């Protein structure tokens, strides 16, 4: 995507979105309501036009309206509302959409059987969609998006309003999609979900505010800060930690002064790790120095980072 912009009259829904999503990547779009996430998905799926900028999906230009049918054959879309036909059974739903994706009868039957099995819908294949539970409906909608085995899958809030158990099943399925080589773009409000399954996330609020791996985003906001709780902070422990941290050693208690790499408290040390140093290295150094570790907390959560970024720009 390069400068992808969409306006509705005077309202700018998406402004100059530029990001490259690699093959087989799971990319999460995070943002508050009205941030332009659904509009972005719709533009990528060729469902709505682009005001300016460009984007290609598997080499197909989304701004080329004549390429729309080809584009829509390359992407699988799960809209925010499942929008199933209540009268059609699970198998009939997949058969209908398989036909519209122009799958040959043999391939279609195989795909339907495979998806019904993979998504644990086999036993309910003849049940009308209206009679399925919310979780099963969501799985059927996912199967519908995947019936033609698209290389790119665009999911709008795939676990919204699902109970934790069903949400986990859907997440596991999304991880499975990545292992099968699909490129996945997910709109989500669930930050812990993005952290668990996304290779990278983009924080969107009309404009793309930040892009990166969830851990990198966290590190960029917290400066790689780690707090290790100890039964007792001893000199050898402090020395071991100091060796790992670059820069000056602060002497405050509790908060890390600007520019300081290490601060010790009565029962904790807070360190700013230099680039290339893992949390595990620090913990190992502390333990080898005789420290008895009680807790390790790594800076702020992605949620804190997200809220901070969104609030900064509002």
């Amino acid at each position, binding site marked *: 995507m390069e400068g992808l912009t969409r306006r509705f009259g005077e309202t700018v829904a998406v402004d100059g979105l530029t990001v490259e999503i690699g093959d087989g990547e799971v990319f999460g779009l995070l943002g508050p309501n009205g941030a332009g996430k659904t509009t972005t998905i719709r533009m990528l799926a060729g469902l*709505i036009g682009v005001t300016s900028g460009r984007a290609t999906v598997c080499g197909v230009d989304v701004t080329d309206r004549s390429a729309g049918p*080809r584009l829509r054959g390359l992407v699988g879309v799960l809209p925010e509302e499942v929008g199933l036909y*209540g*009268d059609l059974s699970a198998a009939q739903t997949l058969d209908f959409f398989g036909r519209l994706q122009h799958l040959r009868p043999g391939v279609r039957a195989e795909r339907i059987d495979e998806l019904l099995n993979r998504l644990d819908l086999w036993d309910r294949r003849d049940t009308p969609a209206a009679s399925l539970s919310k979780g099963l409906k969501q799985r059927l*909608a996912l199967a519908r998006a995947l019936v033609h085995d698209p290389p790119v899958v665009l999911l709008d809030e795939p676990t919204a309003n699902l109970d934790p158990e069903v949400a986990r099943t859907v997440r596991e399925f999304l991880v499975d999609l990545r292992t099968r080589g699909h490129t996945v773009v997910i709109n989500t409000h669930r930050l812990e979900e993005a952290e668990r399954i996304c290779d990278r996330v983009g924080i969107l609020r009309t404009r793309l505010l930040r892009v990166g791996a969830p851990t990198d985003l966290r590190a960029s906001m917290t400066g790689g800060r780690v707090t290790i709780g100890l039964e007792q902070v001893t000199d050898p422990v402090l020395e071991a930690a100091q060796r790992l941290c670059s820069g000056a050693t602060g002497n405050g208690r509790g908060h890390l002064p600007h520019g300081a790499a290490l601060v010790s408290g009565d029962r904790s040390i807070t360190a700013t790790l230099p680039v290339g140093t893992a949390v595990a290295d620090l913990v190992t150094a502390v333990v080898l120095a005789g420290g008895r570790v009680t807790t390790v907390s790594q800076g702020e959560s992605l949620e804190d980072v997200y809220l901070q970024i969104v609030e900064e720009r509002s």
Partner: protein
Amino acid sequence: MNGTDILTIARKDARTALRRRGVRLSLVLFPVIAAVGLSLVVRYAGTRSGTTIPPEILSRLLVSFLFFFVIGSSSLPTAIAAYSFVGEKVERSLEPLLATPVTDLDVLLGKALAAFVPPVVATWFGAGLFIVITDREVSRSGGTTHLPDATAWLILGLAIPLSALLSVLVSVLVSVRATDTRSAQQAAGLLALPFAAVYVMSEIQVISLDPAGMLTLAGVLAAIDVVLFVLARAAFDREEILTRWR
């Protein structure tokens, strides 16, 4: 345009609509009741007067009764069209459909076909039944059969399909604003009124339901259908549906 896609959508929509009891009843009851009821009126009118109805009056009466089926065909498609367009809008099932490689025109034509064919077939069946029954009645009373004459063929071949198409296209346009199937059906159902007015005008002999009159009516309907198709095509645009249909 992809005929297979159009038929796939039409079959699915027609099957879904015909699963509803109300739709099935309207498609069966109107043609049968109209055919049998109007035939009884013809028979009863002849018996009451004690004499046979003069052929020129009988001919006009039969044609004007046959025009009832045009009125029917202008309202029957709204039942299916309401489910096909507004129903999908309410259920939010248009977006997944539009996310397939099918073109907007194919979706529109598929849905229009589903709303068009069953009512037209049902109306033809009713009109055919009416012709058969009245012909038998007239023959039994020693008269000459009048139907199907040229006007009847024009009603069957042009007026019924064109009025049904008009109803489908109006339903598409109504569905842009309608938020539930019932109100869509009611709004599109008002379309029967102009046809009823044509019937009344023919009865008071302001217009004549002869071949020339039917051709004129068919021409007007065809012109309106073309205009409405252009409007429906513009309204049934992927982007319009996803961003403006509420």
